[in-house]
């Protein structure tokens, strides 16, 4: 089992969902939309960085655009190991939730 923190899991999923447009700004929006909370860039950046170090994602520089003052974006792409990790997480989640009695929070 590849160990992932919740933040890492959220970011990894967001990258996968965004596919070709996965750079920090949309990733953050995606994570905010899903979790319904405000995330700072720092809070996104750390798990992103860590995911890359662990070898779950790859990053590459996009083309420079004028509105970024000539600086290019760093795009992220999920690697095979990242997909395996996601698959594993999904499996575990599913197994955990299977057969759980219904409950409601009042």
């Amino acid at each position, binding site marked *: 089992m590849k160990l992932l923190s919740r933040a890492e899991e959220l970011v990894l999923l967001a990258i996968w969902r965004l596919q070709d447009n996965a750079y*920090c700004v949309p990733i*953050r*929006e995606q994570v905010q939309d899903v979790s319904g909370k405000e995330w*700072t*860039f*720092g809070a996104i950046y*750390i798990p992103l960085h860590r995911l890359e170090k662990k070898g779950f994602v790859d990053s590459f520089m996009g083309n420079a655009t004028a*509105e970024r003052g000539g600086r290019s974006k760093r795009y992220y792409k999920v690697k095979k190991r990242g997909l395996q990790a996601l698959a594993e997480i999904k499996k575990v989640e599913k197994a955990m939730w299977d057969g759980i009695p219904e409950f409601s929070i009042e």
Partner: protein
Amino acid sequence: MINKARKKSITPPEPGATIFRLLYSDEFSSTLISDIEDEYRIIYAEKNKYASYIWYHHQLIIALLSVFTDSFYRSAIMLKNYFKIALRNLRRNKVYSFINIFGLAIGITSSLLISIYIFDEISYDRFHEKADRIYRICMDFTGDGDFRIHQLGTPRILATTIREKYPDVETIAQLYYFKWTLTKCGEKAFKNETILYTEPDFFKVFSFPLIKGDPEVVLSEPNSAVITRTAAEKYFGEEDPVGKRLSILFNMRVEFDVTITGIVEDVPENSHIDFNLLVSINTIEDSERWNAVMSNNWYSDQCVSYVTLREGVTLDRGEEMLMEIMHSVVPEGNHPVWTLQPLKDIHLHTDLATGYGTNGNAIYIYLFSVIAVLIIIIACINFVNLSTAISYSRAREIGIRKVAGSLRRDIIKQFLGEAVMICSISLILALLLTEFLLPFFSNLVGSQLELLYFQQWYVIPGLIGFVLLSGFFAGIYPAFFLSAFGITEVLKNTLSKRGKKGLFNLRNGLITFQFLITAFLIIGTMIVYKQLDHFQNNRLGFDKDRILIIHQTDALDKQVPVLKENLRRSPDIEYLSSSTFLPGYGFWNFGVRVGPQLIEGKNNTLDMTVCDHDYLKTFNMQMAEGRFFSRDISTDTAAIVINEKTVEYFELKNPIGKRITVWGFNRKTFEIIGVIRDFHYKSMHLPIRRMGMTLSGTHPHWIDQYVSIKLKSENISKTLDFINNTWDEVSPGLKLEYTFFDEDYDRLYKAESLTGNVIALFSCLAILISIIGLFGLTAYIAEQKTKEIGVRKVLGANAISIVNLMVKEYIFLICIANLIAWPAAFYAANRWLEQFAYKTDINITVFIISSFVVVLISIIAVCFQTIRAANTDPVNSLRNE
């Protein structure tokens, strides 16, 4: 949303991003910033400028914090573990931890105390704003024979000349100092206040802050004076002193009034110039009655001159200028040389016969620094030895760490960190100890020392640096040693105890070195004490016991004979004598003519004192030839007594009856009536030279300053009362000031006794640290060898042979250390003794005794544990249930 951003190009606030990049920069940081900027543009478009501005910086700060906490958190996990293990180890080996920490703490305390002292000494005179550019003018003159004058006196006229013609000198200020005065304010009278006569430029050269008054004006008028804050309180209490008057009785003869025009802050402790009162120098010049004191020609030498050179003017240029002036005054022939002494060198590098106050001595600064470093080395050696010895018990920990993925680098870091941690604990302990010991130490070295953490910027970084450095030195060897353990060796328990075999391994080397230092310090201490003893008990040529000295009798003026007459009535006084100088303090040098004309190529001077008929008996000096002054012979007012050195130097065949003319005594000619045996009329640092004595009243200006009283051994306190009453009868309201001569004499060698005490203290500490180190080490080894000892005992060894087995190696090492220390100490002691004209002889017994002490103490330390180990019942050590 992203589309909105494309509408305008908005430049984000730069400074925040720049700071961010400064603090954190890697390949991702710039994209992180651009990402934040993307969002910023959107917010800027949607909301107002300020909200987006705040948002942007909030994002930056959070990002920065996250980056830092993230990296810290990851390293902190390991750090926490290292810390925990270190504490566990400290707790497990309580005795050894105690020895390590305590030894280091003593070492650090010693070094701290010494450093505080040294910093105090080198801080002298540095508080002046222009300290870098201030110089004192010294005069050096070499004449015939061994004639040399090296002093501070400069003519008053020098200042005027320099001011007029030499723009390289920014300011020059001259000081005139005269000791014997009586200062009165109404009823209050104080003797010998430190009064300096000086000019307004004094405040331009030096930075003594005025509390009241304008520095330009306060000393410009005659009869004006500036008083220090404390002195003002002494004279005037709470009242404002400005405008008040003081009367000064100069040389107990000339009286004048001064008006206080300003108040100056008290002179700091670390200033070589000291004063209570500054009087305008023109008070004592420009008038008939002061002609004898302050003459305005080039041959006088009353003033000490301080100059501030302009920025960029070198010392050489300054001396060139002085040489020019000298050449204009003395165009040819042998002339004195004026030199410039930097202000900062004055306290530690002055070897003049005259000067204000006591000087420090650079030799002692070097000596003490060396001792401080040596003690720290000894303490670090303890640490190294104990940690390597105990390291075997930590071999497994290192093995496991390596298996779990630690690199050698990590283990080195861990052990260095541990050493630094132990040093930090020691430092805290040492700081407490220092606070506690500082008052005693201040007392010992005789200056007021304080450890101020926040006044100087370097104190706290210095302490931290010190801990890191000593931690590094103490930990570096154990760290490399321990990290080198092989995993398999350790875990299979086949670790060979490297470094234990053979005599010449590192640990033995370190122990030898440690005891070498210890022995060196102890031999040093003994020699310093021997020299001190030499000062006290060498054949001085005069007695100093049971002699009471009354000071300041010149204040009585014509009443001195009355005082003497009255005192003679007491049956408890054996002899008494009045004189201008006391033996041991040095006499004043005068030009003389021995015989009909000056002797070519010789130093035609004598050191002179004036005394009465009983000087010889009071101090119990011996005559070599002829007789001393007699009351019955009236012509003795024209008689002189010389010492044996004079006879020898001037090659006088039959000295009695020969004539000596003394220039300074109004060219009066004296007849030699006797030759006194050489006695140390000067400090023991200097060789005995030519000396002459004449009767009181023969020098035009000298009045006897001291009355020396040889007491009988009984009824001392009663005699004291008697002397006090007798004094009060004749004195004009002054209190009796007396001292005992032997105590005064000891004070002359304060620097040496200070050195003796300090070295003694630190040698004791050094040996204490070495011994507890040795104790710890042998205790640990004895513990390790309990099984071996048990087996040996079972096989029939007795306790003595076991102790012998364990002890002899160390004793051998310590003996070697002592032997190496001998020549080193001999060399150092000889260098130190060079400064004295009369030195104690260094003989072998000093070395033998000190080595014997060192060896004996170490034998006790080593045996203490081994005997216990040797006496344990083998059943206890061998039973393995």
